[in-house]
């Protein structure tokens, strides 16, 4: 394992401190327990809080700021944060209109946020993101994972919250965006959890992992390496199979890098995916390409498609000012 670190035990604190220092115009860091808030507390809005294991940067701390999150709780690497963090973050940012948690659907995150929600003295609700179509959905199982589509949910809900909308409306829009969003990912290499010091899975030069999440967990299947168009075709097929969009639907296309895949390749994937979606009669009216939801140092990428409507498009386009997403302000 070769990484820019001092001691494995200090990675998180040092990295969070660096983030806080580099973006001190946008965020503040609380150290015990760990959570980030906006530098200026927002008033008269639902407090939007997310969080999850670290290692997915810029998710979630990079999305704190005007038009998106009020606070984020970073856990240890790939480990859900704990209820005390969420409670303290909620205490810090609650502005009288309730708290909305945006939680990626993993057993650990769900349970920790659930316990926080049970203890929280404020009105609250939770949007569970579950956009990963690599996993079959079912009410009897843990169900689908939340992956890169979470960024879209956070942006859109964050925008609505900024208008003063109430908790129920924010929750409803979050659920709607999640239900109209589908993602699937592919890994070319494993990632290395710093404390473990070795790659989570072994994979050779001729193979890829299809249907991976964002934790270095193995995907649905190991396959022979193929060319980009063939890989994209499989990912897009699974996404469209899930979304079943009608001809002429307007979509947002996100090509998300897992961290170690260069922009040159991500744009090549965009080119391939966009052509395919257009061939299916879809209109790509919004795009995002880059490392928005990562998996430590993994090489790979995911494709996310969101079916837009006027409401979602409007809230996607609205001003946002965070470390990782910024426009119109």
């Amino acid at each position, binding site marked *: 394992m070769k990484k820019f670190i001092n001691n494995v035990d200090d990675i998180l604190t040092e990295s969070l401190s660096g983030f806080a220092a580099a973006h001190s115009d946008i965020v503040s860091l609380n150290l015990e*327990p760990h959570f980030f808030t906006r530098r200026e507390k927002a008033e008269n809005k639902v407090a939007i809080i997310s969080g999850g294991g670290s290692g997915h940067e810029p998710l979630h701390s990079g999305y704190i700021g005007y038009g998106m999150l009020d606070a984020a709780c970073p856990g240890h690497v790939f*480990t859900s944060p704990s209820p005390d963090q969420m409670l303290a973050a909620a205490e810090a940012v609650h502005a009288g209109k309730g708290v909305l948690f945006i939680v990626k659907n993993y*057993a*650990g995150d769900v349970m920790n946020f659930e316990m926080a929600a049970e203890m929280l003295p404020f009105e609250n609700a939770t949007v569970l993101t579950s956009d990963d179509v690599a996993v079959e959905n079912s009410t009897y*199982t843990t169900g689908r*994972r939340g992956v890169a589509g979470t960024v879209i949910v956070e942006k859109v809900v964050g925008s609505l919250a900024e208008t003063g909308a109430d908790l129920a409306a924010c929750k409803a829009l979050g659920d709607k965006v999640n239900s109209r969003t589908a993602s699937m990912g592919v890994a070319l290499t494993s990632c290395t*959890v710093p404390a473990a010091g070795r790659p989570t899975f072994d994979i050779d030069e001729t193979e890829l992992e299809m249907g991976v*999440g964002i*934790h270095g967990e*193995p995907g649905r299947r190991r396959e022979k390496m193929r060319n980009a168009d063939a890989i994209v075709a499989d990912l897009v097929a699974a996404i469209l199979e899930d979304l079943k969009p009608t001809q002429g639907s307007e979509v947002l296309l996100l090509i998300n890098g897992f961290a170690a895949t260069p922009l040159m390749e991500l744009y090549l994937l965009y080119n391939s995916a966009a052509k395919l979606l257009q061939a299916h009669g879809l209109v790509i009216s919004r795009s995002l390409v880059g490392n928005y939801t990562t998996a430590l140092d993994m090489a790979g990428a995911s494709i996310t498609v969101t079916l837009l409507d006027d409401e979602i498009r409007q809230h996607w386009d609205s001003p946002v000012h965070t470390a990782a997403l910024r426009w119109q302000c």
Partner: protein
Amino acid sequence: MRTEFILAAITAVNDAVLNSEAELESLDREIGDGDHFINLKRGCATLLAMREELAPLPPADVLQRIGMKLLSTIGGASGPLIATFFMTMAKVEKAGDISTLAEISAAFTASVEAIKQRGKANAGEKTMLDTLIPVANTFSSLTAVNAEPTQVFDAIQQAAEQGMLSTKDMIATKGRAAFLGERAIGHIDPGARSSQIIIHTITELAKQHQAA
């Protein structure tokens, strides 16, 4: 339940967990995200550091503080589940001293029940519950017939081991391994294995205290 025993168990479990580093790490690497050992180690280290603070307290408070502390240190899926276990034990202990084996068994069963609620899971889903549920069953049926303590501990150890091993052939429906579908088959669940190690360690300790 005595505070002294709980403190001794903390030390013993910490040793046992540290000794299983390679195995636990690789189990969670295979069908999870590789952090289960690290999560447990962090929890154990925190409890170890709390021993002095816990020593003068009554068992109910000790269990409650352990639960709260683990809730804020372990994180992940195992954190809230293990914490829930201790918080339920604390609640039962608070309601009335747990001292006989039968009482401990009842408290254990209630705490496992609380894990099931929290995780919305049951036996056969390839989780720590596949170790814990058979243990709870064995524990209560043997204490119900007033079996010898050593007999109870041996039976618990066996049930834990069988339960843990049974996860190997399962498809997971809860936890991270559920994302793997059939690829999870052939791998023991890390939480089932760590629970079994912990139960084995505590029952061994109980046997020693019994003998002494």
